[in-house]
């Protein structure tokens, strides 16, 4: 564990990504404590002010401070993205491990299932779910949990197939170690690296998808300061108050770059040698 963190911190990409995310998290936590503005309170006297020393990112059409709202929105987007990535990731890893380790009909059944889910375009699936259950944050979770595990299941299955054939795993069967111990303690740590690296790009995509779904009214509902919603609300003012669009957009890009860098750093740090 320790040498991995060391290696992560020594790689410029990993360090950069980590610093960016930490800075964002600190800002998210600290802003409500130090900011004089409320992300929800209306103040029509100060509507559509451009960025300046008092309102760093300007204000929106209701006079709300955009800097405060963007950081409050980070809580939504990061919570949604991490839950919708790491939850399905655990499921997918377990599925992939079982499929690759047990093989036979278990493998066939699980992989057919991934094919079926994969065959539905994601947005069609979300539209169907939202159509049936109505829009809202909870239904976003359902949609992502149904879909996001597939990639992990496939990645981990492929790795497991290779590792299960290695001689050290055969030695474990001769020693009669049970499947749970063999899979979780001896195969998983060697199979999971590409899944972790993939999860970083998955986070980037999921942040964007969350924003996009909210943009189309399918996800988080107003007046939450979710980034996609901030952009929707800005559309009518784009010409006169472009800062309303630019800063939430930059926030999405910032998080995307941070996760991408962290993924690159992790890819190097998680190799067993070096």
């Amino acid at each position, binding site marked *: 564990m320790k040498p991995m963190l060391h290696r992560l911190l020594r790689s410029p990409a990993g360090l950069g990504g980590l610093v960016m995310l930490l800075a964002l998290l600190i800002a998210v936590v600290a802003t409500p404590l130090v900011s004089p503005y409320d992300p929800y309170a209306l103040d029509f006297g100060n509507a559509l002010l451009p960025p300046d020393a008092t309102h760093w990112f300007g204000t929106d059409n209701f006079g709300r401070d955009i800097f405060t709202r963007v950081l409050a929105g980070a809580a939504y987007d990061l919570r949604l993205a991490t839950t919708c990535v790491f939850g399905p990731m655990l499921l997918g890893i377990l599925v992939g491990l079982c499929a690759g380790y047990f093989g036979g009909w278990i493998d066939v059944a699980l992989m057919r299932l991934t094919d079926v889910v994969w065959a539905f375009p994601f947005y069609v699936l979300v539209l169907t779910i939202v159509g049936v259950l109505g829009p809202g944050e909870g239904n976003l979770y359902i949609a992502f949990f149904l879909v996001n595990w597939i990639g992990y299941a496939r990645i981990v299955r492929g790795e497991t197939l290779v590792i299960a054939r*290695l*001689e*050290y795993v*055969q*030695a474990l*069967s*001769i*020693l*009669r*170690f049970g499947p749970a111990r063999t899979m979780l303690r*001896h195969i998983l*740590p*060697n199979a999971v690296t590409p899944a972790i690296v993939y999860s970083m790009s998955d986070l980037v995509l999921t942040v964007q998808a969350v924003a996009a779904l909210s943009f189309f009214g399918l996800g988080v509902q107003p007046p939450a300061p979710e980034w996609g919603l901030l952009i929707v609300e800005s559309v009518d003012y784009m010409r006169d108050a472009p800062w309303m669009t630019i800063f939430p957009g930059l926030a999405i890009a910032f998080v995307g770059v941070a996760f991408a860098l962290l993924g690159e750093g992790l890819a190097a740090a998680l190799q*067993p*040698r070096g």
Partner: protein
Amino acid sequence: MTLLEFRDVSRHFPARRSLADAVLRRPPAVLRAVHHVDLSVDRGETLGIVGESGCGKSTLARLAVGLQAADEGAVLFDGTPMQGPDPAGRIQMVFQDPYSSLNPRMTIGALLEEVVAHYHRDLSAAERRAEAGEALRRVGLPAETADKYPHALSGGQRQRVSIARALCPRPQILVADEPVSALDASVQAQIINLLQRLSADTGITILFISHDMQVIRHLCDRVAVMYLGEVVELAPVDRLFDQPQHPYTAGLMEAVPDIARRRGEPRVALGGEMPDPYAVIDGCRFASRCRFAEPRCETPQLLTDAAGGGLVRCWKAPPLAAASIQTSSRSDLT
């Protein structure tokens, strides 16, 4: 005396059926990786298995430890048929590739202690550590090795760790599948010496698989020669090397310059290619490469008593062992 017995053991691999096969309802081609092998390993001996690549050595090893099940016949330990790996860990295995036979993410100490804990659940953590240290000492590694990861070790050191891991359950048989083939010559000798010392000190039985005649000669008490899934000759090591009686065994020896020179006989190195393993005949499987083949060889050959001891699967062998060599030298001249 017999500790491990292969009783008429076969392991066949059906080929993947092509669509045409399925349509025509042809049965799939079958590869007889191990075919009706009868073999007894005596307590305390080191039995060598030798043969070219693909003759079924590793399959036989996996059958012995229970990684694969026999299609026919049975593997008996101390007279009892085995089903899968032995729960008491009495048969353990050392593998060929030192780079994939250890979990790269565990320290040597952690992986040995885990094995110890698995077989001796009542030991305290300190006792487990001591037992793991003892295992390292038995294979000639310093105690500090326990804190290292596999990538910090050389191939030879890893093979020692593999042996230590295999010894942790206190097995009675060690199956070693080409344990030195991936190592440098000097390191090979060290590992061979280690196995020899273990056998002498603890009386452990070793099933030693190799394609290297020199190594086999150095280490083994008896040797089984395999060809295309069958044992074609089985003999005490001296008899085998002094008077190989199966033409295939003789060919293997000729391929080794040192042994061939020592025997001072004309060189008749193995010619020809191994035939398609899916299309083997009922008669002598070696016939396609045998210089002495004649029509009678097309009938199934049985393992029969050989002159000078052991068994051989060639009807010409006992009386012709000497004569064949004369014929061959004469035919070489013409």
